[in-house]
């Protein structure tokens, strides 16, 4: 059975694409055949984060409009052999994304034996975001520890429970997972950011992970390397934990408590 996971948030710039790339790569690293689709038609970014922007020939819209077949458009990832990327179109209008077209692409991917299909949703609550979530079985709601992001996530949760295929057909609801990104324990302890418990108190859904704020995410993005591959960094470990929890493993939360830097660290500098 193929599982379709949408990565969504409502608000822009919270880390949806970073999460889609790392989550899909994480699943693939564990041996699952995974496809990741960029739904952000007109503002495609996933190919950059995945480092395959120079290998894009055909895209999602070409497939939907039957100008190319799915095999031509899928880009095989260089780092993991089980990972395939379906880029968005940069030149087309976002109206080119149709319900029937997306359904066909997803059905075809299921037919090709993919275990997981990760849908990278655009920001906002327009048709692109609705289509990205429409066929989802599970959802990763990416939220930053600040009020506007939390409120937008709340809005998206409402749409997941009313506008998706599962909701419309009256099946089991889309399974929701909260992923908090850009979490900075120091700023939380100083009261500048919402804490984990604040966010959970507002949204009240199960927490799948916390990704700390980190400079390595930016470095990774610039080099086209998903954060999960950045060995030894807290971000990579956090994303590996997220994937493990998604696959049903029990992992304690990491990187959520602020430890005061010790004397040596203070003396020799802390970035």
């Amino acid at each position, binding site marked *: 059975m193929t599982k379709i996971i949408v990565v969504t948030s409502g608000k822009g710039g919270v880390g949806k694409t970073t999460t889609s790339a790392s989550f899909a790569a994480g699943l693939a690293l564990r041996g699952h055949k995974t496809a990741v689709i960029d739904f952000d038609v007109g503002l495609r970014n996933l190919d950059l984060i995945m480092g395959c922007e120079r290998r894009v020939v055909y895209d999602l819209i070409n497939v939907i409009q039957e100008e190319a077949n799915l095999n031509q458009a899928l880009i095989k990832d260089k780092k993991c052999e089980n990972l395939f990327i379906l880029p968005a179109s940069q030149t087309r209008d976002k109206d080119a994304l149709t319900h029937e077209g997306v359904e066909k692409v997803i059905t075809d991917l299921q037919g090709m034996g993919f275990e997981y299909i990760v849908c990278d949703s655009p920001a906002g609550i327009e048709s692109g975001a609705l289509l990205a979530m429409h066929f989802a079985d599970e959802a990763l709601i990416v939220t930053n520890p600040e009020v506007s992001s939390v409120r937008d996530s709340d809005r998206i949760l409402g749409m997941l*429970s009313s506008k998706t295929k599962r909701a419309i057909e009256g099946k*089991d609801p889309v399974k929701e997972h909260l992923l908090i990104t850009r979490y900075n324990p120091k700023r939380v302890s100083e009261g500048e950011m919402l804490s984990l418990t604040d966010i959970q108190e507002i949204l009240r859904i199960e927490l799948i992970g916390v990704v700390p704020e980190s400079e390595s995410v930016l470095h990774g993005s610039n080099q086209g390397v998903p954060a999960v591959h950045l060995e030894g960094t807290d971000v990579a470990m956090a994303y590996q934990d997220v994937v493990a929890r998604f696959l049903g493993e029990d992992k304690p939360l990491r990187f959520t408590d602020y430890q005061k830097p010790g004397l040596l660290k203070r003396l020799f500098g802390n970035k």
Partner: protein
Amino acid sequence: MSHKKLPYFELRNSTVDTLLFIVKSTDLSELRAELARRYEATPGFFANDVVAIDLRRLENERIPVDDVAALLNEFRLRPIGIVATEAQQEWAGKGNLPFVELRERRDASKPAAAPDAPDAPPATPPSPPPVSESTAKVAATTMVIDKPLRSGQQIYAPGDLVVLGLVSFGAEVIAAGSIHIYAPLRGRALAGVHGDHEARIFCTCFEPELIAVAGIYRTAENPLPDNVLGKPVQVRLNQEKLIIEPLRLT
């Protein structure tokens, strides 16, 4: 495939929500008396809501359907059609109203629930509806919402409303009657929207953006006193003033 859009009009398949007026008696004067007793005090209650006349509960009796329609019109209900069994269609179709086909509402949140038998009255509580959806049953029943209401969602209940999940910032619950919320209220709650001054709001954790009873409202702009903020609370009207008081849950 996209439909070619005509410049002047379009014909589309669609589903329209109406009230059902289920006729249980053939005595017109009784019907009128009961309607008057229940709704005369609030003449604006139905405000031109559309309604279908459901005859299926009348087994072998007959009733002049046009007279029922006229009666409903007096109470500002607008009849649009008749729901009848095949046997009834023979006599019921003689008036001005057409027959409409009824599809029982299925509760989207409970796929396992068996659909009602076709001749049973609609008894399942409606699923959380979008804006201004009305129940299949005529008013004054209690609507129960068991899912959390998220920012941007709005619920309208023609009678009382019971909410078991959280009402988020930016969500709105509206009822003609009272509102009971067994979770935090962080959005807006408007009770007695058709002018019922007796309506109240009850809530187990009171952190609202706005509350209103019969149009008299209060926003969170003036901070709520500590003895009610985040506490179990009831809100009622006393001589056009909103009274917010802690509930003593003993």
